[in-house]
């Protein structure tokens, strides 16, 4: 009898751990650069929809895509570049007809705040005193892809690549610069604004095409209605105001 009870207890514990996800929870995978802004958007959404809890998962867009592709239970995906969302759409992971561009951003080069002679242009990055540059890994990090494209266009990728320290997300690149472990880093203007005491913007990097962030609900999500509601909310004025406050541009 006690063996049966023991087994029943284990089975019950298992059910509690692996039970279905609760209704009223929305899981949003968003690019690392959206960390601060989206937490505000999530809070505003929960205030408007008290029955829903928004759970965030922030990482480089490429890493998020891999999680979704391997079946992670995500409802909404917000990426930092079109390329990652295009890959998601090609793999039929997102609802293409509900995909929207919701903000824009700019690429900047930041240096540690105590740097005496900061580089003023991409050419200055070739100087010997700029020994290490934090760049997102182009294969999985959108800011790295943008950086590589800009440097290749200026025919500087060859000389700059040996100085590159790969970052797994734009926030890690920012952290490397803040710690002074690298001499410069490519991040978004919105990220540079988070650590005003530790990093300063050396110069802004113009890109061929504007940097636009897309958002879309996940095709396999069981919370389709909620996901669609969240995407509409992100496009609405209250959410756009929060995003603008953090430095994001209108789409």
């Amino acid at each position, binding site marked *: 009898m006690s063996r049966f009870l023991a087994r029943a207890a284990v089975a019950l514990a298992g059910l509690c751990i692996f039970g279905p996800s609760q209704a009223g929870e929305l899981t949003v995978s968003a690019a690392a650069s959206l960390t601060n802004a989206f937490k505000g958007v999530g809070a505003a959404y929960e205030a408007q929809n008290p029955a829903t809890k928004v759970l965030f998962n922030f990482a*480089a867009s*490429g*890493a998020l*895509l*891999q999680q979704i*592709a391997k079946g992670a239970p995500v409802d909404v995906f917000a990426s930092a570049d079109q390329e990652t969302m295009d*890959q998601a759409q090609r793999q039929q992971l997102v609802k293409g007809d509900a995909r929207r561009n919701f903000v824009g951003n700019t690429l900047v080069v930041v240096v540690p705040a105590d740097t005496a002679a900061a580089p003023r242009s991409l050419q200055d990055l070739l100087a010997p005193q700029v020994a*290490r540059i934090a760049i997102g*890994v182009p*294969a*999985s990090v959108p800011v790295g892809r943008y950086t590589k494209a800009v440097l290749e266009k200026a025919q500087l990728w060859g000389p700059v690549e040996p100085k*590159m*320290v*790969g970052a*797994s997300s734009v926030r890690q690149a920012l952290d*490397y610069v803040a*710690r*002074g*472990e*690298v001499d410069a880093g490519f991040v978004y203007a919105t990220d540079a604004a988070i650590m005003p005491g530790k990093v300063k913007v050396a110069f802004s990097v113009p890109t061929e095409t504007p940097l636009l962030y897309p958002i879309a609900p996940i095709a396999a999500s069981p919370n389709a209605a909620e996901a669609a509601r969240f995407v509409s909310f992100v496009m609405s004025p209250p959410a756009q105001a929060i995003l603008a406050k953090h430095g994001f541009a209108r789409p």
Partner: protein
Amino acid sequence: MDAAWVALGLSLKVASWATALATVLGVAVGYALSRWRFPGRELVDSVLLLPMVMPPTVLGYYLLVLLGRKGWLGHWLEQTLGIRLVFTWQGAVIAAAVVAFPFVSKSARAAFENVDVQYEQAARVLGVSEAAIFFRVSLPLAFRGILAGMLLAFARALGEFGATLMLAGSIPGRTQTLSIAVFEAVQAGQDEVANLLVAITSVTCVAVLLLAGRLAPPRAIAR
């Protein structure tokens, strides 16, 4: 696919140096803890075991704060000796050595405690110097136990990921060890590369275990 072989070479280089460093320190500390009774001995032993139980990312963070350019040790190293450890393979060695150290020190202490002090006392009576007693009496008798600890340390150093990533970063050819390379390949969706790296790592680990079985056969210990 030579990026995979570069990562393998780097992993073996980092793990070997880390094991060597951990062994030298671990044997010294293990001997001291086994032979020297002082108040707080068990506390010191527990503190030195911390790298084994602490999450590697926490360890990596401590090392980064200590050895980074703005850390007190890292700043001194850069000013006086011009050494930078972050984003270098030497930094990776330090991270791996810190996590591998407790394996050697624990095994060494147990091994030395199993060495009968009568042998050491006999050598002392015969007029042998303390250093010679250590190298010619204690160490050879404790060798099998220390070797077991070294092999565990090597395996741990080979698989080290969290602390290494924090301290040394992921720079192909310089600090991107096999474990980090697998992580990056998965993040980038390069499944074939990831599969190849995982296969190489598994084969290497099996080879290390077989070598361990040859060098320290279990039956030899039960004497």
